C-alpha cells in the first residue's frame, strides 16, 4: 500500500470536559480510496471527518493530511484546506453571491487565479455537475438538489486531492437524493479520494472500497462493503444494519 494520504494516530477529542466524542481513533486512508462512514447519530462520524480539515481540533493524538500534520500552525491548516474539499449537509452556499461567484471566490482570492480563468474553471465544474445553465442565479433560487451539486462543484474548483462529504443527502427530498448521488458516483469513478458520512447504503455498496462503522466515538468495524453488509463481525454492527436496512 502506498503512503497514506490521511492518517489518524490514537486521536482523542472531547466537547467540553465530559463528552468524549472521539476515542483512540486509528485510521489510514490510501490515495484514491473511497470510504463510507456510518453509525448512529452522536457516534462521532461527523466530528471525525471535520477533524481532517480542522473544523474541529483534536486534543490528543496526531493527524496527518497529505503529509502535513494538523497543529495550531495556521499556515499548515491553510495548506491542508487547499487540498481538501468539503460538502456539508446544509450546503452552506453563500446566499449573497451568484452560483458562479460562489465558485470563483476561492480560486480568485485563495488561488490568485485571474477572474476570466476562474470563471472558465467554474463553468467546467458546473457542467460536470450538469447545472451550467444556472450559473447566474442565486443559490436560494435553486432546488436543494441543485444547491448541493453547486456545493460539490464549488469544492472541486480548487482541485482538491480529497473530498469530504458530511451527510450530503440528509437534507434533501427523496427525488433529489438521486441527482446528487449520481454526481458523487461519477466523481468516485474519476479516482478522487473520498470520505463520505452517509446512510445511503446503496451508494456505499456501489462505490466504497471500505465501510467504517462507528459507535460511541470508536471505530467498531471496517471492511469492504460486500463483507461489511453480508458478514458483519460485531453484534453492534448487525443490530445497526438490521435497523437501517430493515425496511
Amino acid at each position: 500500500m502506498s503512503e497514506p494520504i490521511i492518517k489518524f494516530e490514537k486521536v482523542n477529542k472531547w466537547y467540553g470536559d465530559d463528552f468524549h466524542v472521539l476515542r483512540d481513533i486509528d485510521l489510514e486512508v490510501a490515495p484514491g480510496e473511497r470510504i463510507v462512514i456510518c453509525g448512529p447519530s452522536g457516534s462521532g462520524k461527523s466530528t471525525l471527518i471535520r477533524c481532517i480539515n480542522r473544523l474541529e481540533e483534536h486534543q490528543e493524538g496526531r493527524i496527518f493530511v497529505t503529509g502535513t500534520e494538523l497543529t495550531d500552525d495556521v499556515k499548515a491548516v491553510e495548506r491542508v484546506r487547499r487540498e481538501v474539499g468539503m460538502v456539508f449537509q446544509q450546503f452552506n452556499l453563500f446566499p449573497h453571491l451568484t452560483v458562479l461567484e460562489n465558485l470563483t471566490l476561492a480560486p480568485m482570492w485563495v488561488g490568485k487565479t485571474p477572474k476570466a480563468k476562474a470563471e472558465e474553471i467554474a463553468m467546467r465544474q458546473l457542467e460536470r455537475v450538469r447545472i451550467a445553465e444556472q450559473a447566474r442565479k442565486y443559490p436560494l433560487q435553486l432546488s436543494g438538489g441543485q444547491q448541493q451539486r453547486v456545493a460539490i462543484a464549488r469544492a472541486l474548483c480548487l482541485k482538491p486531492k480529497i473530498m469530504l462529504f458530511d451527510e450530503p443527502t440528509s437534507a434533501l427530498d427523496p427525488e433529489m437524493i438521486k441527482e446528487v448521488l449520481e454526481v458523487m458516483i461519477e466523481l468516485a469513478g474519476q479516482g478522487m479520494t473520498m470520505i463520505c458520512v452517509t446512510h445511503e447504503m446503496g451508494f456505499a455498496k456501489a462505490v466504497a472500497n471500505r465501510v467504517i462503522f462507528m459507535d460511541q466515538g470508536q471505530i467498531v468495524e471496517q471492511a469492504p462493503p460486500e463483507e461489511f453488509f453480508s458478514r458483519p463481525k460485531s453484534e453492534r454492527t448487525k443490530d445497526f444494519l438490521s435497523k437501517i436496512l430493515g425496511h
Partner: protein
Amino acid sequence: MASVFQPIPPRPAPVRTTGYVAWARANLFGDWRSTTTTIVLALVALWLLPGMAQWAIFQAVFHPSLESCQAARGTGACWAVVAEKYRYIILGRYPYDEQWRPVVATLLLMGLLGVSCTRRFWRPWLVPLWIAVLAGYFVLMAGGVLGLSKVTTDLWGGLPLTIMLATLGIVLAFPLAVLVALGRRSKLPAIRTMCIVYVELVRGVPLISVLFMASFLFPLFMPVGKSPDVLLRVLVGITLFAAAYLAESVRGGLQAVPKGQVEAAATLGLTYWQTQRKIVLPQALAMVVPAVMNNFIAIFKDTSLVTIVSLYELTGSLGLALNADADWRPYKLEGYFFIAAIYFAFCFAMSRYSLWIEKQVSVSRTR
C-alpha cells in the same frame, strides 16, 4: 339538442378592486372598527386643521416686516423671522462677506454624498474623490491659503457644520464600529475584552458628557497651547460615541450569519479577513440596514448637542440669531419650525435611501 357555443362578453368585476373608491372601502371603511376610527380621526382633523391653517398660512406674515409680525402676534405665524434671519440661522457666525465659502464647501460635500449614494459611482476612484472634496471643504472653510482669509473654527456654524460633523462622524464611526463588532467576537481574549470595555463605557455615559470631556477636560491634560482644535476634539468625541452604538447594531448582524458560512469559507481556504470581508460582513450588514440607518439618523441629530461646547451648528446658530435681537426673539417658535423642516428633510432622505438599500441587498433573497 346540439349545444351551441355562446360566447359570454367580458364584464367588469361586481366589486371594483382598484381606484380611489375601492381603496377607501378597503382601507378606511373595511369593517366597523376601521370605519369608526376613520370617522373619529376625520372629526379630530376637522377640529384641528382649520386653526392650524389659519395660524400657519392665512393669518401668517411672510414679508420681512417687524410691524406686521407684532400686529399678527397670537393669531398668525411670523415667517418673516425666517426671511429676515435665514442667513444667520443657516450659516451662523461665519464672516458675512465670506459666506459664499461655506455655501460652496457644503454643496461640494453634499454633491459627494449624492455621488457616493449612487450605485454606478461605486468605483475605486470614490476614495481619492472623498479625500479631495474633504480637503477642499476644509481649505474653503478655514482659509489662510490661496488668498482666502483665515476663519477660525469657532466661527464655523449653522448647516455647514451640522452636515460636516454628521458626515465625518458617520464615515469615521462606521469602520470603527465594524472593527469593534468583529473584536467583540474575536477568539483573542485581550481584543475581546478591550472591545467590550469600550462599548460598555461609552454607552454608559451621555453624549453631552463626552462632548464636555472633549472640549473642557481634555485640554487640561495637554501642555498649554498644544491641545488640538476644539472642532477636532468634538469630532473625535462624536465618532467614538456613535461607533459604540453602531458596533452593537453591526454585531447583531454578525450573530445572525449562520456558522456554516464561516465553516464553508474556511474549507475553501479563505483567511479570517477574507472570510469577514467577502462572506460574513456582506450578509451581516445587509441584515442590519434599518438598525444602522437608525444610528446614522441619530448621529445627524445628535450633532445639535455640540452647541453646548460653543460650536454653533444649525440649532445653536438659530439661538444665536434670535437671542441677540430683542425685536425678533419672540418668534423663536417659527424659527424652530424652520430648522425642524431642515432636519426632517435630511432625515427623511436618509430613511428613503435606507429603503432603497434594503431593496438592493434583498435581490439574492428573492426566489
